[in-house]
């Protein structure tokens, strides 16, 4: 077990290192000049050249990489080309917003997926089971930006219950929840539908297992059998899929943040790309990469805790 943890941590560190090289050099060749983007349409070539020098954008790539990567991991991500202020606080602020949004999305997804998945599995021979199954199929086919626009049209514009966009920090309490509700719903609906399909499949599979029949034979009711023996087994693939979904949600958040005017990583990234704010782009992408890797690492470490069978195989 300890060896497994050490090995996973080693792979994690190595992946982060490789990712930093890929992120830096791949984004470094983005067409468009950062200096020109800052100075605007009317700037002369001399002005652009001067700024390029000032930003250090004319130095060799490996030098800039080393400077960036050492800075990044010591918490100093450098100065944004566009805002001329430190990148780190901006990225961390945006990261916090996106994480809250993604967590909200996951809550919605899980709240939809578990009941919908379990019900459609348990009742898969009946019309209502088929209906739940159909609902989740429908949910998968709706892109989350469309879900967002529809939610705005209904709950913000037509009914006026919730704001159509914007963000409030968690300290704002109710106002925070008001602003979080629609984007989290838009983000979670689609992923909830996907997750429901996996839950249904996992529950169906586990219901056919011998130990389930044994449990029934020992006198447990179908409900208790499912809750005590079935769900715990079905949970393993569901947790794995949820972690994969987490990466999807972060990507989905990019779109949702634009639709709902939320100052998270996604909207910050899009603006940074438009401004060719390279340092900002590289730092955000790197943060997302690390985040996804951390979640994968955690799931890898947590799975043996949920499923004791995985412990003995290591």
């Amino acid at each position: 077990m300890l060896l497994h943890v050490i090995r996973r941590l080693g792979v994690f560190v190595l992946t982060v290192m490789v990712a930093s090289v890929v992120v830096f050099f791949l984004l470094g060749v983005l067409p468009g000049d950062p200096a020109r983007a800052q100075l605007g349409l009317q700037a002369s070539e001399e002005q652009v050249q001067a700024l390029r020098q000032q930003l250090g954008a004319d130095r060799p790539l490996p030098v800039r990489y080393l400077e960036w990567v050492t800075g990044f991991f010591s918490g100093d991500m450098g100065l944004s080309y566009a805002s001329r202020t430190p990148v780190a606080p901006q990225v961390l602020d945006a990261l916090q917003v996106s994480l809250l949004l993604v967590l909200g999305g996951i809550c919605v997804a899980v709240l939809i997926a578990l009941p919908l998945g379990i019900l459609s599995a348990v009742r898969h021979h009946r019309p209502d089971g088929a209906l739940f199954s159909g609902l989740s199929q429908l949910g998968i086919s709706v892109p989350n930006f469309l879900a967002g626009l529809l939610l705005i049209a209904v709950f913000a514009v037509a009914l006026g219950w919730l704001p159509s966009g914007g963000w409030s920090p968690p300290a704002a309490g109710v106002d925070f929840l008001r602003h979080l509700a629609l984007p989290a719903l838009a983000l979670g609906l689609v992923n909830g539908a996907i997750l429901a399909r996996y839950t249904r499949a996992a529950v169906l599979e586990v219901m056919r297992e011998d130990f389930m029949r044994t449990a029934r034979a020992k006198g447990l009711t179908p409900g208790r059998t499912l809750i005590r023996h079935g769900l715990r087994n079905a949970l393993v693939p569901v947790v794995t899929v949820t972690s994969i979904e987490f990466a999807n949600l972060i990507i989905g958040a990019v779109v949702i943040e634009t639709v709902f005017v939320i100052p998270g990583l996604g909207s910050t990234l899009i603006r940074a790309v438009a401004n060719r704010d390279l340092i900002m782009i590289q730092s955000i992408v790197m943060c997302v990469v690390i985040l996804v890797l951390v979640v994968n690492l955690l799931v890898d470490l947590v799975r043996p805790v949920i499923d004791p069978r995985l412990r003995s195989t290591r």
Partner: protein
Amino acid sequence: MRPAPSSTALTAVLAIGALTLMTACDAGADDASPADGTDSDGVVADDASVSIGMFAVPANLDFTTTGGAAIFEALLYNVYEGLVRVDSQGELQPLLAESWEISDDGLEYTFQLREGVTFHDGTEFDAEIVKFSLERLDEWSANTPEDLSAIDSVEVVDDHEVTVVLSEPDYDALFWLAGPLGTMFSPDSVDSLATEANGTGPFEFVTYENAVRMEFARHDEYWGEPAGTATVELVYYEDASAAANAIRTGGVDAILRSEAYDQLESLEAEDDVDVLVGSTQGVVVMSMNPDHEALAQPAVREALQHAIDRESVLAAATAGYGEILGGPTVPTDPYFVDFSTTYEHDPELAREKLDSAGVEDLSLTFTVPNRAYAEASAQVIQDNLNEVGIEVTLQTQEFPAVWVEENMVDQNFDLTLVNHVEPRNMANYAHADYYWGYDSPEAQNLFAEAASATDDDEYVATMQELTEQIVADTPGVWLYNAPNVVLSTEGISGLPENDLGVGIDLSDVTVAE
């Protein structure tokens, strides 16, 4: 297998789920209550707040080193001021200078400065500040400091009188002084221009949350008429629909330069939203590269002028809002002449002109910035040109990063189109190396003549002659003047209707009780 922990865990998950669900329902119920005032604005006139949706997002607060209009349009006239200003009709008005005199040779501008003016940090405004600010133009790297390159020196006469000496006459100098280039800065503040704003204007700068919102508060010791609202919040949107939704749902009180053209009709129908359509400095122009063999011929360029149906372009780009143009000037320019009927839509005539030039099988690449107005316009133009036998390949490019590089710097295009939003942008036709490659010695002479004019009439007459010359030479197809659509909720008044490419003056905005 030990079932006990798993059922505990499951119960916990279910409990958290139920709690979350309840909280969510709770929040929903709360929202239905009309008494909830988190998004609402004050309604008492004098201490009212107003929140205004905007689109161009400032990257930081320093317009001396960051290009684009986003920063100065928010700060100038509100936080910062200059010696003179341009009013909503495009007329020059005194601001920090009470009056001025121009010498007969047009080389010396002597300004009488307003007394008792201080910056928000308490620094006194005087002639030394004027000298400092204008001499600092050498350090600007963005927003065309060369527009005031005619300034040779600034001489302090006394504390409240200053003479700006030009090396050559420039009739536009006062206009440029009324814009961002004429901003007065306190010497102690210039090291922190990117993050703070210390001016002499009716509002103090409070905060800027990057790309989210900017806040101003009324400056109580302002030298002039106090601002109409106690605070102003500028809320930044990337998306026109998101902003339109915000005004429908009370998220903002007003929106400036809305491009939600498809929603204007339904917004106009709403009782509590006012829609006002003014003009901008924006000239949407399709440039034709003179280095292209066929496009070098005037007859071919005229053919394109006649082939394009500007009405349809306007309908596609802005749902018909805005003014059709036929020349490089806009209605708020003092020398505006309406050329919208000069090149009428006439495909037959276009074909004749192409024949007369001996051009057959012309195929052109049209590089289009990835902006809604540009893509919509380009598609109409592509159809129009197909109709007269010109094959057009559309190539969308990311704006500004890629488009600027490809078209403005490398001049690698046959046809391209963009909305030139900088004020008095006709001046670009004076520069032969500008991307559209208009190189006319006659026009350049007329520009010089206009610059050395000594009175309004002479200046206007020369500029009009010049416009006629440019229109006849047809270096571009001028399509339309982009509209300034102002949306406001009931009770909000004093929003500037026309966008003059300088600061957006919000000091007159008031909220009815």
